C-alpha cells in the first residue's frame, strides 16, 4: 500500500506490479477501469477486436497507453502489451519448515508470521446482465468461462493459464466492483488475515469458508468504501493446455462454512444498497451495485436473513468439480493475461479525507435529567463508533455533534436551531426527554428535517409528520399501557380489588396515571385513593401516610426518576410496604438496587435477558455498553429501556439512510412510513397516528435486585412470573 497524494496504490509482497489504485474524489466509490495485459504476439489481433467492439478514449486517470474500449456494461477496458502477472503454474503453498521432532507446528500467537498477500488473484464485478458480459469477454478478450451459476454469477479464466477465475461477474442492478481477491500462501493466513482486520477495526466480514467453485479458502473483509477484499488460499488453477469443463452450479451448494454453518448465516455478507436484493442472490455474492450516473450508492454491510440458504453439510459429494483432461491439447488461444483495476473511491486514506455526515443533537448533560441523558450519550457514542467501523453511511464517516441543553427545553430549541444554521448538520437525532424533544420537533418542522427521537412519552403531542419515535408506546398509551398492567395483575396469583393512583404532575407520567384511573374503573377496580403532587415535591411523608391509611391492594405510582425512590423511602419511614406496586417511569438502577422496591413493577421494551437478547446486534451492544457505561461512571450498567430506546433510534436513522441511499429528509420520512425497521426492541412500524406503531410495552418486576420481564409470557425472562407478596 503506497500513498501518493490523493491516491492509494495497491502492491503485494514480493511483486513489483501495481495491482490497483484507489483515487480520492469525495464521492461514493465507483469502478473506473480495468486493465489487461497481453503478449506482444496477440496484441495486434486484440487491437482489431477491441476496435471492432467500439474504440474508447483512454481513461483520464490511466497512463493512457494501449487500446481502449468499453465492455458490455460500459466499464472502460484497457489492453496493453506487458509481462504476464497471472500465475503460469498452480500457486504453491508457502513452505513452512517442519518443526523439530518433539516440537509443535503452530507458532505462538505473537510469533505468527505477518499475513502478506502475494498477488491479486481476481476481481469480481457486478453486472446487470452476466451472460452479456461473459459473451463480451469471450468474444473480445478471449477469456474462457470456468463455471457459472445460472444468470447469477459467472467465473472466467485466461487462455494462457490463470487461476480458476481472474474475472467474475455477479448479477446486480448496476455495474461496479464487488471484491478484489488477494492470494495468500497458507490456509492459516486466511484466518490470521481475518483476525488482523478485526483487530484493526474492520470487523465486518464473512468467512472463513471454502468455495466450491474455484475451491479456494476465503475470508472477506469490507473496505472503508463498501467494497470487499478477499483473502484467498489455494484457488484452482487452469493450465494453458487444459480444457476446463465449465459447470453450472446450484447456488446453495457453492461453499462450505468452515466456521460452522450457523455463524455463516449470521455473519453473511450482504450488500444491498437500497434496492431489494434479488431473491436468487447467491450466498457470497449479493446484489451490491454501483449506481448509474447521477445516483449515489452505499453498500450495506448489515446481515439480512432470508435470502440465503446455507447448508453446513455442503459436502464433497455435492461438489461438481470437473476433472482436468490432460492430453487434450488446446490451441494456444488469443487472450489477455493480466488484470488490474482502478477504483475511484471516497477517500485516499480510509475515511480521512472524506467529508463526514454530521448528525446533530442535544442532550441534558447537566441539570436534573443528566443521569439518564448520560445513558443516551454513551449509547450514541457506541453506535456512531460501530457505524464508522462498518464504513459509515453512504461511504462517508459519521460525526455526532452533541450540545448540552442543561435539561432546559427552551435551550434545546435554540441549540437545535444553531445545529442547523451554524453547524449545518446533515441529520438530526432527538434529545432527552419529552420536553426537549417537543422543542426539537418544532425546530425540525420549521426546517423540514427528519427527527428521530428516543423517549417521547406523549404521542398525542407529536404532530409533526417527519418525527419518528423509538419509544414504542403506540398511539394511545394512556389506554394500552394500563391495560397491559392490569391484565398482568389479573393473571397474577392475587388479583387486586382496590387501587390507589398517586402521581406526579410531570406531563409524561400524569396522563398515563389518568389513563390508569379510567382503565381501572372500566375493569371494576375500586379506587380508594387518588393524589397528585407537583414535580419537585420534597416531602413525601404525608403522601406515604395517606397511602398507608387507604390500604390499597395495588398502588399505581406515576413518578419520574427520583420521585419513586423518595416515595418508597417515605413509606418505609412509617413502616409501610405496598403489596403490589407499579412505577412509571422509575430510575431503573436505583430502584432495582433498593431493598424497598421488592416486587415493584414497571414497563419495559428491553431487558438483558432472552428473548430480547436474541435480537441481531443485541449481545454485542450489551457487552460494549457494560464497558463504556462503567467507564462513564454510570452506577447501573445494565441495558434496559433507556439504553435500548437510544440504540433503537440510531437503528431507525441508519435504516432510513440505507433504505433510501440518501440523507434527503423527505425521502427518509417517506421510506420510514412505508417500511418496517428491525431493531433490538423488535420490528417497528411508523404508519399509525403520530407515526406511532405498536405498543411494545411489557411488564417488568424487581426480583432479587434486578429487573426481569414477567408479562406477557412470550417476553418473560426464562422461568419468571409475576410475584406478589
Amino acid at each position, binding site marked *: 500500500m503506497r500513498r501518493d497524494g490523493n491516491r492509494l496504490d495497491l502492491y503485494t509482497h514480493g511483486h513489483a506490479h501495481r495491482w490497483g489504485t484507489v483515487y480520492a474524489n469525495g464521492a461514493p466509490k465507483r469502478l473506473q477501469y480495468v486493465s489487461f495485459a497481453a503478449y506482444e504476439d496477440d496484441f495486434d489481433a486484440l487491437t482489431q477486436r477491441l476496435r471492432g467492439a467500439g474504440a474508447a478514449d483512454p481513461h483520464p486517470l490511466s497512463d493512457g497507453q494501449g487500446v481502449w474500449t468499453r465492455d458490455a456494461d460500459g466499464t472502460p477496458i484497457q489492453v496493453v502489451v506487458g509481462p504476464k502477472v497471472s500465475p503460469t503454474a498452480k500457486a504453491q503453498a508457502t513452505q513452512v519448515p517442519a518443526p523439530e521432532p518433539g516440537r509443535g507446528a503452530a507458532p505462538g500467537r505473537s510469533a505468527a508470521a505477518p499475513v502478506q498477500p502475494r498477488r491479486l488473484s481476481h476481481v469480481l464485478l457486478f453486472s446487470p446482465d452476466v451472460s452479456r458480459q461473459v459473451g463480451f469477454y469471450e468474444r473480445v478478450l478471449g477469456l474462457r468461462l470456468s463455471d457459472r451459476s445460472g444468470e447469477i454469477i459467472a467465473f472466467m479464466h485466461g487462455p494462457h493459464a490463470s487461476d480458476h477465475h481472474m474475472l467474475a461477474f455477479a448479477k446486480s442492478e448496476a455495474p461496479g466492483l464487488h471484491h478484489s481477491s488477494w492470494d495468500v500462501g497458507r490456509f492459516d493466513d486466511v484466518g490470521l488475515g481475518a483476525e488482523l482486520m478485526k483487530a484493526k477495526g474492520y470487523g465486518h466480514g464473512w468467512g472463513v469458508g471454502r468455495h466450491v467453485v474455484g475451491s479456494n479458502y476465503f475470508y472477506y473483509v469490507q473496505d472503508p468504501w463498501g467494497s470487499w477484499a478477499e483473502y484467498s488460499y489455494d484457488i484452482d488453477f487452469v493450465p494453458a493446455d487444459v480444457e476446463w469443463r465449465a459447470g453450472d452450479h446450484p447456488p446453495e451448494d457453492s461453499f462450505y462454512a468452515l466456521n460452522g454453518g450457523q455463524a455463516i448465516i449470521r455473519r453473511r455478507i450482504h450488500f444491498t444498497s437500497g434496492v431489494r436484493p434479488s431473491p436468487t442472490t447467491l450466498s457470497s455474492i449479493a446484489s451490491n451495485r454501483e449506481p448509474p450516473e447521477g445516483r449515489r450508492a452505499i453498500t450495506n454491510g448489515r446481515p439480512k436473513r432470508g435470502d440465503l440458504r446455507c447448508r453446513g453439510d455442503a459436502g464433497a459429494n455435492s461438489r461438481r468439480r470437473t476433472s482436468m483432461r490432460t492430453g487434450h491439447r488446446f490451441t494456444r488461444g488469443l487472450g489477455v493475461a493480466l488484470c488490474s483495476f482502478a477504483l475511484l473511491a471516497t477517500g485516499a486514506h480510509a475515511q480521512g479525507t472524506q467529508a463526514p455526515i454530521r448528525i446533530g443533537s442535544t442532550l441534558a448533560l447537566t441539570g436534573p435529567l443528566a*443521569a439518564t441523558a448520560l445513558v443516551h450519550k454513551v449509547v450514541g457514542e457506541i453506535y456512531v463508533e460501530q457505524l464508522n467501523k462498518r464504513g459509515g453511511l453512504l461511504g462517508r464517516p459519521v460525526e455526532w455533534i452533541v450540545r448540552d441543553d442543561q435539561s432546559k427545553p427552551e435551550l434545546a430549541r435554540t441549540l437545535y436551531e444553531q445545529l442547523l444554521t451554524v453547524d449545518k448538520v446533515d441529520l438530526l437525532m432527538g434529545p432527552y426527554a419529552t420536553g426537549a424533544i417537543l422543542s426539537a420537533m418544532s425546530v425540525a418542522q420549521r426546517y423540514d428535517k427528519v427527527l428521530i427521537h428516543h423517549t417521547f412519552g406523549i404521542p398525542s403531542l407529536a404532530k409533526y409528520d417527519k418525527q419518528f419515535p423509538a419509544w414504542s408506546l403506540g398511539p394511545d398509551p394512556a389506554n394500552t399501557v394500563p391495560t397491559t398492567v392490569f391484565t398482568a395483575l389479573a393473571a397474577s396469583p392475587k388479583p387486586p380489588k382496590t387501587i390507589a393512583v398517586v402521581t406526579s404532575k410531570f406531563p409524561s407520567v400524569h396522563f398515563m396515571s389518568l389513563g390508569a384511573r379510567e382503565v381501572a374503573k372500566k375493569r371494576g377496580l375500586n379506587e380508594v385513593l387518588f393524589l397528585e403532587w407537583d414535580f419537585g415535591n420534597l416531602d413525601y411523608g404525608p403522601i406515604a401516610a395517606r397511602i398507608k391509611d387507604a390500604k390499597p391492594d395495588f398502588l399505581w405510582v406515576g413518578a419520574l426518576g427520583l420521585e419513586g425512590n423518595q416515595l418508597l423511602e417515605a413509606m418505609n419511614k412509617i413502616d409501610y410496604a405496598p403489596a403490589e406496586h407499579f412505577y412509571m417511569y422509575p430510575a431503573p438502577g*436505583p430502584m432495582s438496587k433498593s431493598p424497598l422496591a421488592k416486587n415493584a413493577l414497571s414497563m419495559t421494551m428491553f431487558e438483558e435477558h432472552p428473548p430480547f437478547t436474541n435480537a441481531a446486534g443485541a449481545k454485542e451492544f450489551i457487552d460494549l455498553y457494560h464497558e463504556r457505561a462503567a467507564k462513564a461512571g454510570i452506577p447501573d450498567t445494565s441495558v434496559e429501556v433507556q439504553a435500548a430506546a437510544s440504540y433503537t433510534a440510531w437503528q431507525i436513522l441508519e435504516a432510513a439512510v440505507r433504505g433510501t441511499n440518501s440523507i434527503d429528509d423527505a425521502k427518509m420520512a417517506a421510506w420510514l412510513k412505508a417500511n418496517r425497521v428491525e431493531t433490538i426492541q423488535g420490528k417497528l412500524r411508523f404508519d399509525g397516528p403520530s407515526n406511532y406503531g405498536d405498543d411494545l410495552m411489557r411488564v417488568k418486576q424487581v426480583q432479587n435486585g434486578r429487573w426481569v420481564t414477567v408479562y406477557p409470557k412470550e417476553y418473560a425472562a426464562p422461568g419468571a412470573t409475576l410475584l406478589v407478596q
Partner: protein
Amino acid sequence: MTFPSGTLLAQSALSGVFIGSMYGLLGMGLGLAWGLLHIINLAHFGFAFLAAYLCYQLASVGGIDPLLTLALIIPLFFALGMAVQWLLSRFSVSPLNSLLATFGLTAIIEAGIQYFWTADFRKLESVYSGQKLRVGGLFVPVPELLTLVLALVLGFSIWAAMRYTNLGRALRALAEDAPMAAAFGVNRRAHALLLAGVCGALAGIAGVCLALSFTLTPSQIYAWVGVVFAAVMLGGLGSPLGPVAAGMVVGVSEAVTMAFASPSWAPIVSFSLLIALLLLRPGRT
C-alpha cells in the same frame, strides 16, 4: 373529601415538622450571613450538598459512621466559609452582587459534584437510615429526628451566643452600624470571617443531615432554594431560631394540606401563608 384519621393527621404533621427542621437548618447559616454580613450566599446550598456527598463518600466508601464525618466536615466547611467571605470582602462585593457571585459558585460546585459523583442518584445506606422509633401509633424515623434535634440545639446555642456573649454583641453591633462598632474597637474583618466560618460549618452539618435522610442528585441543590429562602425571610434575617420556626410552619402547613387535600395544593397553601405572615408580621419594615 373525608376527614383524615387522627393518626394520619399526626403522622403527616410530624413529617412536616421534620422537613421544616431541614428547611430551618439549611436556612440558619443563610439567614445569619444575610442579616449580619449582608451577603446573600446561594453557595450555602452548594456547600450543603458538597458536604452531603462528602459524607456519602466517607460513610459508604470509607465505611466511617456518618456522624463521625462531622469531625472532618465541620472544620473543612468552616474554612470554606471563611475563604468565600475573604474573597467577597477582598473584592468588596455588594449584597446584590454577592447573590450573583455565589450563584455562579453554586453552579461550579454542582458541576464538580456531577463530575465526581455523576448525576445519578446516590443514597447513603447507614446504620441510621432504616431506624425508626414507634411512639403510640406514630413512627419517628431516626435520621429525621436527628435533624430536628440538631436544628433546635444549634439554633438555641447560636441564639444564646449572640445574646449573651461579647462576641455575639459585637456581631450584632457590626450588623447594625459597622463604623460605630469599629470605633468601639470591634475588628470587623476578623468577626466577619468568623461568622462566615460558622455559617459554612452550619452548611456542612445540614449536608450531613441531607445525606442521612435524602437521596442525593446534584440538581436537587436548587429544589431547596425557594422554600428555604421563604423560611429565612419569614423567620427574620440574622436570627438563628427564626428560620427553624418558620421552616416548621411551612412544613407543617404543607403536610397538613397534603393530608387533607391534594398534595399539589401544598405549595399554594404554604406560600399564601407566607405572604399573609409577611404582611401581618409585627415590626415589619
